[in-house]
């Protein structure tokens, strides 16, 4: 595996790329053959064949995620790549007789780096589908770019409900959760338990903004009040001054509209500065079991959060988590990684059903199929690209039997209640 990362200020952009199983030397040869094939097709007066079979003789899946930052250990990282590779292996390694290849890269939570990488992947490496896309800012940029280039994206890590709302695209799929579902799940549970006044600590970019907006809506709809908000840059180490503002607001609930390392830091520091001892309740709006592990179950005890999946719910899920641990070097079996696996299988099944990797045909198959596996119970991908499936409300418990046994499922939220109705999503694909 080759890691290439730009040196120096990360503001100087070069796509940061991790290429695996790479046969760099073959590209030129392939290019020549391709050019020859195209020329032949033109001579014969036929259009380049794309509707049938596998283009370029290989199905390439690109995992574009945060491989080094705050979202590495709960969302992206090697754990996400391992989940996709595991799915490819379980699928048999080939589809329609052609090999399946998985490549990955680090977008460093920068939309420009993400876009540059995606562009290079699609144009030069002929990547057929891009997944992960943790970080909504990156996801929004890449989804738009990929759709313009007729390439399917299946985002798992990003939260913003805009991905399938006003920024929806024909080929963009959002798989696993979104900010609306989180707001409905956690927001409703907290308000119903008496948490009627909120102060938010929000990650200052697309994801945090969407989560703030969706949660405020839920809180206010249920008769609660939003007293204030602090916008905090992503990857902030010191939350103390924001936490003080939250404390001073007198709100009953401090809503953490952030994720990954930011959530871990803010919950830990809220504990350090005695917020919870003073009677305020924390509402982690996007928490993963990996975050809970980092915070420690003694500190996070009692925290309720919404999740797209939990490994300890049924035999199928437990079995998957066990096998995943073996192939991923014991990475956290978070719902996002399970989604990575599930969508890879769904995507490959769609190719098989369509008989081609052509984006239009595959997207149509994905919309038609029922996704009913260990991850998504009764799942269905809507026209706006959103996967509708059941969500779970988890509550952190102490003294679990294993490392990842950190929570109990306290409620199941049916997909149709958790996600926004198709008519209200704001997606204007139908109108076109």
């Amino acid at each position, binding site marked *: 595996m080759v*890691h290439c990362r730009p040196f120096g200020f990360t503001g100087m952009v070069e796509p940061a790329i991790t290429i695996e199983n790479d046969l760099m030397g073959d590209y030129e040869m392939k290019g020549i053959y391709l050019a020859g094939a195209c020329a032949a097709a033109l001579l014969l007066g036929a259009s380049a064949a794309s509707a049938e079979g596998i283009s370029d003789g290989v199905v390439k899946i690109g995992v574009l995620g945060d491989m080094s930052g705050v979202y590495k250990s709960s969302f992206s990282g090697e754990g996400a790549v391992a989940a996709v590779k595991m799915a490819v292996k379980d699928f048999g390694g080939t589809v329609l007789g052609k090999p399946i290849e998985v490549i990955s890269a680090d977008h460093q939570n920068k939309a420009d780096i993400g876009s540059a990488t995606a562009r290079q992947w699609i144009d030069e490496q002929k990547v057929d589908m891009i997944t992960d896309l943790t970080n909504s800012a990156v996801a929004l940029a890449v989804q738009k770019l990929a759709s313009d280039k007729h390439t399917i994206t299946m985002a798992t890590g990003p939260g913003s409900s805009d991905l399938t709302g006003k920024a929806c695209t024909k080929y963009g799929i959002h798989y696993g959760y979104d900010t609306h579902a989180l707001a409905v799940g956690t927001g409703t549970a907290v308000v119903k338990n008496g948490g009627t006044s909120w102060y938010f600590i929000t990650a200052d970019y697309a994801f945090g903004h969407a989560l703030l907006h969706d949660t405020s809506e839920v809180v206010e709809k249920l008769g609660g009040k939003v007293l204030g908000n602090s916008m905090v840059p992503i990857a902030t180490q010191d939350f103390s001054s924001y936490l003080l*503002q939250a404390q001073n607001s007198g709100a009953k609930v401090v809503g953490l509209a952030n994720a990954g390392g930011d959530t871990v830091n803010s919950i830990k520091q809220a504990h350090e500065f005695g917020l919870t001892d003073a009677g305020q309740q924390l509402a982690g709006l996007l928490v993963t079991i990996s975050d809970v592990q980092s915070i420690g179950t003694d500190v996070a005890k009692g925290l309720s959060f919404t999740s797209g999946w939990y490994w300890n719910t049924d035999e199928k899920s437990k079995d998957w988590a066990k096998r995943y641990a073996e192939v991923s070097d014991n990475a956290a079996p978070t719902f996002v990684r399970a989604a990575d696996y599930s969508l890879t299988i769904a995507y490959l099944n769609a190719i098989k059903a369509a008989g081609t990797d052509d984006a239009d045909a595959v997207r149509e198959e994905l919309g038609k199929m029922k996704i009913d596996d260990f991850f998504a119970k009764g799942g269905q991908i809507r026209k706006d690209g959103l996967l509708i499936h059941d969500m779970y409300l988890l509550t952190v418990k102490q003294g679990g039997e294993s490392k990842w046994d950190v929570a109990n499922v306290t409620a199941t939220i049916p997909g149709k209640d958790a996600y926004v109705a198709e008519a209200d999503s704001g997606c204007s694909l139908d109108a076109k």
Partner: protein
Amino acid sequence: MDVMMRLILAQGMLGLNNGVFYAMLSLGLAVIFGMLNVVNFAHGALYMLGAFVALILSSYLGPWIGLDALHLGFWPALIIAPIVVGCFGMLIERTMLRWLYKFDPIYGLLLTFGIALVLQGLFSNYFNSAGTPYPAQPESLRGVVHLGFMVFPKYRLFAILFSIVVCFLTWFVIERTRLGATLRAGVENPELVQAFGINVPRMITLTFGFGTGLAGLAGVLAAPIYSVSPLMGANIIIVVFAVVVIGGMGSILGAITAGLALGLIEGMTKVFYAPAANTVIFFLMVIVLLIRPAGLFGRQN
């Protein structure tokens, strides 16, 4: 105590917490600038290096040399890291910076800027760009202290007190002792001091080592609070330069006072108008430059 007062005091404590780091770093910069006339742009990177040395001692060194059980904790790091960073600084001075003294100071600035970029790039290549939590916070400094108006983590209180002591000692040595007098004389008139039998080049190397060692020390102190990231130096160095400019380039007392005061002002801004907190220092810098171009404590000439 009413709510407003409590908030002011609490943000003040946090401001002081940031302020001691500004003070420690700008102090090192001031020492280096005052004694060597070098604008050390690598200072932030050396602060980062200090934090990484602490992290490596606790988490990586053992496995690297095959002793998995070896974890050097916070206290050893507090001594080792500044020495490592100081030696690294002296190496830079001996091998590179030395050749640039006869040129315009801008060359020293460019060289150190380059060194900062190289260090930052190297560490981003091998470590998480968003930071790795420092695992070895000493057991004795865990927990909190109730200050009446707020709950304050013990470790942060320790960092504040420790830094203030270090700042005071540095000021005392340079401004009030014979050693400091020799140093200052060496800057004013190197030939004459050399004639007294003092090895001025060696003195300069040691001074640079001391200044960078201070940056390393600040890095170790910061590690348990801010977690260790390759960009931590780049994030703070801009603020620290503003502090140095406000305090007066090369003024020891100015650096310390301005560092603490600006930390407090930043904290107060968070009480009254939070969005301006990140920029208030730069506003002040503009004002100070317009009114007293040599800084509050600088010699106006």
